[in-house]
């Protein structure tokens, strides 16, 4: 079923006889159960006020269209949504609704926040077909419960978005990257912690063990960027690494690759995404049984590639964080579960919330569950 307006969305949900899988641009290859509901037809930017740093759009609006509109005003989506197509070998067009429903954030997550932190308001249709609005288009809003956060990252399990309102930010004048060469995982994570624990406003901190390159991104006004790069360089001199500075163009290319996990675009093996306490990261990666990994978010995010069907969660054991199986065949996804199992209390609340918002149990049955 293809949706073109909030009204048709309401009708479709009210009339649904069985399970529905909500699909935006279809770029993430998420497991689908039941009838596919395509919402990419809910399109268009409905409001953009550059002076107020706010943009409102229908969820099917392509991310590229939003980024283009923002670029014209020298602004951007600061949380840097990832494009999954290279990693998953999918086609289609990433949509803003899909980004928000998955709370998809890139390397800048560590300095400016996640997609959920930029989502100011939503309209959605719940499982009864009721249109619900929450939040708004202002940056500070504590009027009632924050269902906006609840919807961000809910993978369409509570309702189908029909409008999203976002905070946007100015695009900085320039950017540059400091690259440290030759550090092992532990030393790299320590150096990244040092950099983020400085006043120099690092907006990206990633390490690739294969090349032994640790990258630290700085953004802002030209003079400020070069000042902070040199300060950072002296701060990290103790790490004993060879240091190199990369200019704006090289920085753009480097971080786009880090964001989209270019290291695993060759299509080999399963891919896991682990969110953890940064200082735990080297230990987690080492015991994960993975073949290769890269660190983003100063170690707080690890992308790991393992042999097909490998149970990475079991290998890691208990941790402060969670592991998501991003790329695998349907069989492995079904056996291992895409999402990390939650502690009993949280799992019970999650299930009860789903039952409240989706009493007929029709939405995205396979999402956020261990088993579809």
């Amino acid at each position, binding site marked *: 079923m293809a949706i073109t307006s909030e009204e048709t969305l309401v009708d479709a949900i009210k009339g649904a006889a069985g399970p529905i899988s909500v699909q935006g641009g279809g770029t993430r290859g998420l497991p689908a159960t039941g009838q596919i509901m395509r919402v990419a037809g809910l399109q268009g930017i409905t409001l953009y006020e550059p002076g107020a740093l706010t943009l409102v759009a229908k969820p099917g609006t392509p991310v590229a269209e939003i980024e283009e509109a923002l670029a014209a005003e020298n602004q951007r989506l600061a949380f840097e949504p990832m494009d999954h197509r290279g990693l998953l070998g999918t086609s289609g067009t990433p949509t803003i609704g899909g980004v928000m429903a998955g709370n998809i954030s890139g390397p800048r997550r560590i300095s400016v926040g996640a997609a959920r932190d930029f989502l100011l308001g939503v309209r959605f249709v719940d499982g009864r077909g009721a249109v619900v609005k929450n939040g708004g288009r202002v940056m500070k809003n504590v009027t009632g419960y924050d269902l906006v956060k609840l919807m961000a990252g809910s993978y369409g399990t509570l309702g189908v978005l029909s409008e999203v309102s976002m905070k946007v930010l*100015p695009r900085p004048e320039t950017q540059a990257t400091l690259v440290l060469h030759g550090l092992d995982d532990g030393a790299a994570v320590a150096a990244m912690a040092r950099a983020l624990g400085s006043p120099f406003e690092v907006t990206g901190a990633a390490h690739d063990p294969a090349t032994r390159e640790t990258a630290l991104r700085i953004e802002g006004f030209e003079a400020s960027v070069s000042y902070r790069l040199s300060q950072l360089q002296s701060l990290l001199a103790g790490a004993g690494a060879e240091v190199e500075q990369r200019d704006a163009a090289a920085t753009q290319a480097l971080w786009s690759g880090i964001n989209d996990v270019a290291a695993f675009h060759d299509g080999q093996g399963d891919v896991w995404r682990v969110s953890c306490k940064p200082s735990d990261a080297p230990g987690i990666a080492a015991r994960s049984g993975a073949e290769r990994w890269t660190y983003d978010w100063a170690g707080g995010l690890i992308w790991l590639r393992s042999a097909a069907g490998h149970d990475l969660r079991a290998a890691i054991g208990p941790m402060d964080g969670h592991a998501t199986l991003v790329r695998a065949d349907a069989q492995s996804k079904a056996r291992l579960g895409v999402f990390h199992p939650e502690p009993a209390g949280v799992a019970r609340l999650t299930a009860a919330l789903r039952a409240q918002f989706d009493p007929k149990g029709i939405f995205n049955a396979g999402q956020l569950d261990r088993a579809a």
Partner: protein
Amino acid sequence: MEMPIPSQAVIARKTRVVDRLRQVLPADAVISDERETRAYECDALTAYKCAPMVAVLPYTTQQVSDVLRICHEEGVPVVPRGSGTSLAGGALPTADCVILGVARMNEVIETDYPNRIIKVQTGRTNLSVTGAVEEDGFFYAPDPSSQLACAIAGNIAMNSGGAHCLKYGVTTNNLMGVTMVLMDGEVIEVGGAHLDAGGLDLLGLICGSEGQLGVVTEATLRILHKPEGARPVLIGFDDNEVAGECVSDIIKAGVLPVAIEFMDRPCIEATEAFAKAGYPMCEALLIIEVEGSDAEIDHQLGLISDIAQRHSPVELRQSKSAEESAKIWLGRKSAFGAMGQINDYMCLDGTIPVSSLPFVLKRIKELSDQFGLKVGNVFHAGDGNMHPLILFDANKPGDLELCEEFGAEILKLCVEVGGCLTGEHGVGIEKRDLMHVQYAPDDLEAQMAVKDVFDPAWLLNPAKVFPLDASETRRAVPLAAE
């Protein structure tokens, strides 16, 4: 302000409830004497008072769990309380309730600089979180103006903001994890030292839920390294509208200050008379602060000043030193006190889209004439969070009611232009009955459905946030057996 009629059946069980609470808490943690419970009769919204049946001040998460379990079994409503600085009446008791204060739970549990987090018990005050890490160069960013007194528990309940949230965000953007006790005594852990939820974002849901979903006893907070420095520029304009345009132009130019504060003429006059900060007498005053090294600050203040010059300011004063910065901030920081010198005041907290600023200020002026009450406007201009201060005389019969009516009109105006009722203070009882203005029945139903999940019997802070008529059937859930 209407409150539910206290349950006489609950009050009749007071002795038994107190006895049971004493079995799980140390002697000094249970307050049941009527002279002593009066200390908890109100929060910072002092117009409304009601002593609770009992107040408890537990020391540990286990004790909080025991208290909630007992109250759940006895069907006693519980009103959680941080430091009692809510301006919205979030901690206002009812005569049949147990006030659960977290003030004695104020320890730092863990400080972890490599991972940039601090874990604290939530009775700890906001400023003392920064106090625990500032010697090492770190700070906790959300800075509500009550930060000397307000507790992290209350900050989480109300999703508190502050002057610097344009750059650093509000509580929800700086909260990584919580230990929370549900009404039936179950203890859950949500989030931790890692970023983002693996499943539904319960942390985001809990933050700002006004103590209605659970009692948060421990919190993991993000800490940041302090900037090298910060300095403001003060700019005066002869026209509100022009000041608003200047703010918009600065934001569009790609400068992102940490704070943009706005004061209008009545507020400037009042603070000048009170604090003598040397402010120019004009229609609108902006205080814009930026951070960085000295050179970075000079560069940004230069850009801001260039933009401001294009709008013909009547005054432009760039701070060059800590002393000059303090002087620029002096008036702003004493604004509430200055207004309080003139008369009693009610502080509103609606947020508007920045673009609607001139229109909203004009309408507030018209309403002020209509109601015959003076109003001064101080607010965070970068994010549109207004703080109109309405002056009234609490001793004059009918003045409070008139002031509340005026306040309600201003808040309706905020919603009308695309904003909201409250930007950082919370709904509490103060804005509870205005929720219908912002939300349709289905919107409120969705929020109340969340409370049903966490607190099916609606015992936690039940008379807040939702209009009483909307929550009536839920609050009427039969209480536990005698």
